[in-house]
């Protein structure tokens, strides 16, 4: 991968998600940020809806959103993988699902972003061009020996967001492959091989509410060609994509360095756009988990979001603030956000007001 040439297209920002943290959203990226709260309060729910093409320019426009952070995110993934190869694992029987995922992403990218990606097929002889990353590879579909990595690793080094692949058997889903470098504090290496309820065990409250029973029942019926999506969210200090449990002892101390002066720049709302696709050959489910980060300072530039986030954070049950890892900084967040909440009503839905 020749990432050195990758920033010739000025659309892609040259920025970092660690060290000096030069990550930033452009004004256009702020406007299209997937703000996850349709109402002024929040509680767990299955909250799934069809993943259909949404508003032009929004993160829902295409099956996979490729945005201004694409090249820098892929560089960050390569950095994390070099440091810890266990972030990408696939149990031996999941290779076919990896090919399914490769096909899904290549076809989607080439269809939705023809200026950047091309896919040419002659039977099983495929030719893939990824201009932003400077990749031009010919390979044989379903023949692992013709790619530099396994199919899942190959394609997910070229696609933003984390990915897991779930095998379906015994009326359950088993997380048995994944590329996980931008996770909200969970470990693929620990969870790989688990069933649906097993890997969700650490989540508080939701189990008792029946959320996982309903979600599993729903997902077992997921049909090919009818993907679904939902949001999840948490809070991250500094735009650090790799908030892994593996490195928690390294990034955890950053939480103690927030102050009223720096919270606007350093505290980020972290949103996951989670989508689920049934795969055609393997019958596995692909689960892309796409992470979006926005600083509080940029978020409050949208008055509706500022008011609503203040109300959500203020009213969130303590268990959730603890689980999401921001209980210690919640008072600081509320204090900061309250400056932007005049008590006015907010319009329904998550779109920013025009």
């Amino acid at each position, binding site marked *: 991968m020749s990432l050195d040439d990758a920033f010739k297209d000025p659309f892609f920002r040259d920025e970092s998600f660690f060290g000096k943290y030069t990550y930033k959203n452009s004004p256009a990226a702020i406007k299209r940020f997937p703000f996850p709260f349709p109402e002024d309060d929040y509680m767990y729910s299955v909250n799934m809806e069809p993943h259909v093409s949404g508003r032009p320019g929004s993160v829902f426009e295409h099956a996979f959103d490729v945005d201004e952070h694409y090249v820098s995110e892929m560089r960050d993934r390569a950095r994390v993988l070099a440091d810890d190869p266990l972030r990408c694992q696939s149990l031996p029987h999941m290779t076919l699902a990896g090919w399914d995922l490769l096909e899904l992403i290549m076809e989607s990218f080439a269809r939705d972003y023809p200026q950047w990606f091309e896919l040419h097929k002659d039977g099983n002889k495929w030719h893939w061009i990824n201009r932003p990353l400077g990749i031009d590879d010919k390979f044989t579909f379903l023949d692992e020996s013709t790619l530099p990595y396994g199919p899942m690793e190959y394609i997910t080094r070229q696609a933003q967001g984390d990915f897991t692949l779930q095998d379906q058997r015994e009326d359950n889903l088993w997380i048995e492959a994944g590329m996980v470098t931008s996770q909200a504090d969970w470990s693929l290496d*620990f969870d790989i091989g688990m069933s649906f309820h097993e890997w969700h065990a650490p989540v508080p409250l939701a189990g008792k509410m029946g959320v996982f029973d309903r979600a599993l029942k729903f997902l077992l019926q997921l049909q090919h060609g009818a993907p679904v999506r939902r949001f999840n969210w948490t809070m991250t200090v500094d735009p650090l994509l790799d908030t892994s449990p593996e490195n928690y002892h390294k990034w955890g*101390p950053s939480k103690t360095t927030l102050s009223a002066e720096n919270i606007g720049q350093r505290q980020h709302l972290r949103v996951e756009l989670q989508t689920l696709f049934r795969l055609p050959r393997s019958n596995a489910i692909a689960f892309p988990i796409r992470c979006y980060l926005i600083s509080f300072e940029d978020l409050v530039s949208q008055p509706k979001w500022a008011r609503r986030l203040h109300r959500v954070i203020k009213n969130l049950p303590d268990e959730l603030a603890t689980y999401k890892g921001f209980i210690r900084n919640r008072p600081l967040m509320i204090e900061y956000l309250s400056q932007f909440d005049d008590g006015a009503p907010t319009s329904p839905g998550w779109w920013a007001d025009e």
Partner: protein
Amino acid sequence: MTQTQSDEIMKSRPRYGVLSYRPGSTHFIVADGEGGEAVQSLFAQAPEIATTAHIVYIPGANGTDLSAALETLGAAVFRKAPSYGAARQRIQKVLGDAHMGLQLYAAGTEGLIGQVQRDAVEAGLPHDALQTEQRGSLARRVQCVHCKGITENVTTDPFVCSHCGLNLFVRDHYSRRLAAFQGVCIDAEDPGEVPPAVERFK
């Protein structure tokens, strides 16, 4: 001594039963510590098991050693081992050689049961081929999520990782593949602020 009851029901944690005799051509039994009592009950239920039984017994980390009593059960093969690690190659060989009709039993600590289960699945046996009974110490096997090293027989929370030395709390999250709970740094945000260790898994 009664069967161990786990302190809470956790979704990622396996549930255990009571060993009961099932007819089979051979009976492979792995136990540690108080798990030896479950083996005695199994033999009392079905004395005919002895002629085709192979027992591997590991005295408990808490000092419980029932090997003298188990040796008198008259199993066709009785093997005392100092640790699971020491016995593992033997266990893997027996599991790998398994024929139809092999009955598999594991009794004792969760760490032992989990390791037998993992090795059985790796040997290609179905995950429900194994009968389990939890007895005795609630000590846990815990994997440090940071350095990936496993600390055996953890009885306190927090504890110090025996590999990298970080102070870890034991998360209620269990991996069958690793046969271990997850340990996470407790003073990551405030290095050095470690609450006193409490004996939680006696």
